[in-house]
């Protein structure tokens, strides 16, 4: 369960987020849509306690991000956008083991969980190779595994489909669906409208730091064709046109 309450964030002369409020239920997947610089990554960083909000607050499973950041971090797993954030001189398995240890997992627990993730995301063939030899797609699979190695109940995934081919991307989103069924809360951002449309229960559109639309794609599918929906989403994301 995530409760975002009037979050604003200022960076020097730039207001990255303006009064952002929404909530996400257990077993729900939220898709974040927005241009580069719309505030998606900043929002996810604030929820994960990496950045502090200038105003407002948020609660993760009842823990306030300002008052109990440590508890919040135990409950979340975050994949950051951009660089994979993996240690290149370590192997994929060593990366996962390191983060499992930092999250307080025992060797037995982490061993089982890592084995599960390696099989789930199909990287057994290169699990014991150093990350600096990996392609972007390979790194992305390991980075996602790293983010959720401690089996968190809240998953924040910033562009999980970045650099992945169609098959790998589907594997990731199928996995998210499984997690949803287990009651986990998921927020993900993506530049792929298809993935947002196909996998999110609700979509939040951010434009210049503000939420301009929250909707369920199913309500449009009854009235409009896919092409029309794509055009509407395009106008929303790029021009902030709320009259959709």
């Amino acid at each position: 369960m995530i409760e975002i309450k009037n979050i604003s964030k200022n960076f020097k002369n730039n207001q990255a987020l303006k009064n952002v409020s929404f909530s996400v239920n257990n077993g729900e997947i939220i898709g974040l849509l927005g241009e580069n610089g719309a505030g998606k990554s900043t929002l996810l960083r604030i929820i994960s306690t990496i950045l502090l909000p200038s105003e407002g607050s948020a609660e993760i499973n009842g823990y306030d991000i300002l008052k109990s950041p440590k508890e919040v971090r135990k409950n979340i797993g975050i994949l950051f956008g951009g660089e994979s954030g993996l240690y290149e001189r370590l192997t994929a398995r060593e990366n996962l083991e390191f983060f499992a240890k930092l999250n307080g997992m025992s060797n037995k627990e982490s061993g089982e969980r890592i084995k599960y993730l390696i099989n789930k995301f199909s990287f057994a063939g290169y699990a014991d190779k150093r990350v600096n030899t990996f392609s972007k797609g390979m790194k992305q699979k390991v980075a996602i595994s790293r983010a959720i190695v401690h089996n968190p109940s809240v998953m924040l995934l910033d562009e999980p489909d970045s650099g992945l081919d169609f098959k790998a991307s589907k594997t990731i989103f199928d996995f998210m669906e499984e997690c949803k069924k287990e009651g986990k809360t998921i927020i993900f951002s993506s530049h792929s409208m298809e993935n947002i449309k196909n996998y999110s229960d609700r979509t939040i559109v951010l434009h210049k730091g503000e939420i301009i639309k929250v909707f369920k794609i199913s309500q449009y599918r009854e009235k409009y064709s896919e092409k029309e929906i794509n055009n509407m989403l395009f106008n929303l994301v790029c021009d902030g046109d709320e009259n959709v």
Partner: protein
Amino acid sequence: MFKQALIIFFKELKCIMRDLKTFFVGILIPFFLVPSILFIIGGGKAEQYSPKVINIAVSNKDNSFYKFMSAQDDIAIIETNNPEKFLDSGEISSYVIIDEHLDEKIIKNEPFALDIKYNEFSVNSSISYSLVSGYEEAYREIFQKYSFERIEDLEQVGEMKINLGEQIDSGLIDFGSVFFVMFVPMMLITYSCVGTSTTAADLGAGEKERGTLEPLLATGVERSAVVLGKLLATTFMGVLSSMSTVVGFLIYLIISSARSVLNNFNIMSFGALLVAAILISVFFAAINLTISIYAKSYKEAQTYSMFIVLLAMFPSVFTLMMETSRINFSYLCLPVLNIICIIKEILSNSFNLLHFNVVVGLNVLYVFLLYLVMFKLFKKENIIFRV
């Protein structure tokens, strides 16, 4: 917190050891470079600077000092009309200008002049100067102990033999030791700083640049543990660098027969030198890591660290020729300079436990204060995310 810091420490070590560049720069280069540099500067074995006979010239011969010097086995007086030229060419090592009325003044118990000239730019000449001035002192002491009433009595002085030359062989001019005491502190300081700067830049600014810091901070780990783990790893590399420098010194000591140092160098001195090396490594690790945490990029961190290396050279150069007797309490309070002082004391066999304890205590305090600064910086998002 300590458990988390250790997890980070061991991870960092694994990453560092897998980077050949760091391994070469931090460990192998000082191991080979230090003895090589000392050999180049010190000219290798000490014995080659210990000539059996020193050539000198004198301004006039008709006096007791000429006779006294002629009587010495390790002094040869060369005839020349142009002593300056001979000094420059190295044909003589010293030129003694003797008071024209030396013997008369001695008899009258009046002060007399003996002016020794030597070539300041020649190592051999500088060494010879100390021997010749030793003879001059010995000559003057004779007249403090005995009085002579007639010039004829001064003939006895010309027959006095003083075996100052033997002291050359027993280590008076032990150049290996001289260079060792002069340059070891400077090289240890330089290498501790260089050895920690690469690692610190990688673990602080490098981690920001690679985007690995955010996932790390998003775990349950405390930021103080992250800082401590990184400080331990940087210090470890600094200690390895310093240790390989110390081992390089030992190789030089043994090969160069730097007897003065070698004879007085025991397990305790080695242990004290090692503690000093660790102290300086921890200090530079803390300084370089603080800079690295502040820096936007790896390159920026390295630029700042180069400045620190240059800054660290100042106290090294300042104390290059310093005698340990000149060490005062204010020197012991200044970071870097204080460690140079205790290294010099250890190497010159004038170890002072009080000085050592003061320096250890103060450095622990400095590192703790730097740790607090690092921790403060690490909590500021505008610092750690200002890539």
